[in-house]
């Protein structure tokens, strides 16, 4: 009797234990893969992964996303979720909004899973954004990463101004950055007012807050076609010259470039401390502003700056306008440089990038 029981027990141990032992033994690139969900995908190509995923039901698919998010997400293996998310999107209409919001709000799910479900909700409700049910989580206790995802994926209107102002106060990092950026689209004057406060004592503010305040100020100055931008231009140059934070240096140059302003682009061209590639970017983005400079009776100093710009980034569209003002040059050295750069523009000039002239960019005015 005892022997028989032992045998049965041994059988059970073998039945359960061997597969577990075998599965725990899977090794890939000198690394043991312990998660049984992950083991299914070892050495599988695109077609095989697709076949596995197609057989999963909705809940199983979410479980797999959670498993991958927890294991590979922690290793920064972001793209690992690509086939899973592709499969989720294929089934977008099989999910009710309530199901999605429940997963977003469930703190037992991985943050990545919750962020992915925010994306799924956004795709599902793209044409019905007025009834965004995710926004209610922004005042609740959910991780900031999920809040940021909701903010970036959602459209806001006048009824959300107080909510966005509340969120701006919540941290000094990306949550503030994204909230202020959104507020500037809804109420650029209010965002400008908050930004003025941030920038007035930028020495004690976080880089993210300063960067967002620069963007919101640019939005306000552009939206309201405010002519005198000198104070803001000086402030950006001041930050650029004094900060040691490379991201803030970049942010200051991009703010100057995004202004689409004559004085601003001239300052960028003439500033020797700005990296060459950022000057190239700004000249490309502002080629129509440079064109306007040439068309409006430019001083010799202005022509000098335009020649300098074309030496850095020659643009074919500006050949004729530059030729037309060449006669105004008295300085022989500048005249020679102008002739040389015109030859370069003819030979290897880039075509102006019309994408910058989009109405939303305001590049073409």
């Amino acid at each position: 009797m005892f022997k028989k029981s032992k045998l049965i027990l041994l059988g059970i141990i073998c039945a359960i234990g061997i597969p577990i032992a075998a599965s725990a033994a899977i090794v890939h690139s000198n690394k043991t893969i312990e998660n049984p969900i992950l083991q299914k995908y070892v050495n599988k190509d695109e077609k095989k992964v697709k076949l596995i995923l197609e057989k999963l039901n909705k809940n199983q698919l979410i479980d797999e996303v959670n498993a991958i998010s927890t294991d590979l997400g922690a290793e920064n293996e972001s793209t690992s979720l690509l086939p899973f998310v592709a499969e989720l999107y294929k089934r977008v209409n099989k999910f009710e909004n309530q199901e999605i919001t429940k997963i977003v709000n469930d703190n037992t799910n991985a943050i990545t899973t919750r962020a992915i479900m925010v994306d799924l909700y956004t795709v599902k409700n793209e044409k019905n954004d007025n009834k965004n049910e995710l926004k209610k989580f922004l005042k609740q206790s959910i991780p900031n990463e999920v809040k940021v995802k909701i903010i970036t994926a959602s459209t806001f209107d006048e009824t959300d101004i107080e909510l966005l102002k509340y969120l701006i106060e919540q941290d000094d990092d990306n949550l503030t950055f994204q909230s202020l950026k959104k507020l500037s689209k809804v109420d650029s004057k209010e965002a400008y007012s908050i930004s003025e406060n941030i920038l007035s004592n930028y020495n004690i503010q976080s880089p993210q807050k300063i960067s967002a305040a620069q963007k919101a100020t640019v939005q306000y100055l552009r939206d309201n076609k405010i002519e005198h931008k000198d104070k803001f231009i000086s402030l950006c140059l001041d930050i650029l010259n004094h900060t040691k934070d490379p991201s803030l240096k970049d942010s200051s140059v991009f703010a100057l470039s995004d202004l689409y302003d004559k004085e601003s682009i001239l300052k960028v061209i003439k500033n020797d401390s700005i990296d060459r590639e950022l000057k190239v970017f700004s000249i490309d983005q502002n080629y129509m502003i440079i064109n306007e400079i040439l068309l409006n009776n430019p001083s010799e100093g202005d022509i000098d700056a335009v020649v300098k710009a074309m030496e850095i980034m020659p643009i074919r569209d500006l050949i004729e306008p530059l030729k037309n003002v060449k006669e105004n040059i008295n300085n022989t050295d500048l005249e020679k440089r102008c002739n040389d750069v015109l030859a370069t523009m003819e030979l290897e000039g880039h075509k102006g990038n019309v994408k910058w002239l989009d109405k939303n960019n305001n590049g073409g005015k």
Partner: protein
Amino acid sequence: MKKNKFIFAIALIGSLLISMVNSSVYAATGYEGYAVYRDGVLFNYTWHAAIMDEAYSTTTTRPIVHSTLGNIVNYDTWNNFLNGKTFKGVYRPNITPTSTDRDLFKSMGRKLANENISYNAGYQVYYNTSTAGTWVDSSEISSMRCDGVVEYIYEWYGFKVYGNSTYWDVTKNSFWGRDHHSGTAVTPQSQAGYLTLVTSSIPK
């Protein structure tokens, strides 16, 4: 007469060479603005993509810009990019970019990093089709995938990567164009197939 012609030719070639050297002295060098890839995403499923912000992997501590999960488009270290996986090569658009083009690629990478754009595993580039302009400015992107960083940068400047003749430009605001660059229609590994290999060695 023949001697004069010879001297003139030498002088012309010399001045051409000098102008070539001069125009490239300050322009993109090394591998700046090129795309880099490594394998090992979901074991052998696909690759991971990034854009070179520096000339070489050893130039600075954070030589690349990429989009990673739970994070935003940002600069990162070479080790974080590789993450213990195998390097698959440096790639460029099929039409050879000039060094000025590569300056533009690099600066657009910096612009994307400046916008704090979050990760999206489903779409290369995601934006609101109703609020974005005709051309999707970097500030209008709500999220993007690692291969989206490469696709957006190259295609903003007119260098086609993936896609058919109607929807190839991922920077053009279009529901179907956005969809054309989603899911598994294009992956980081298949994207590399639409580019030209510069070198399969680590850029150092």
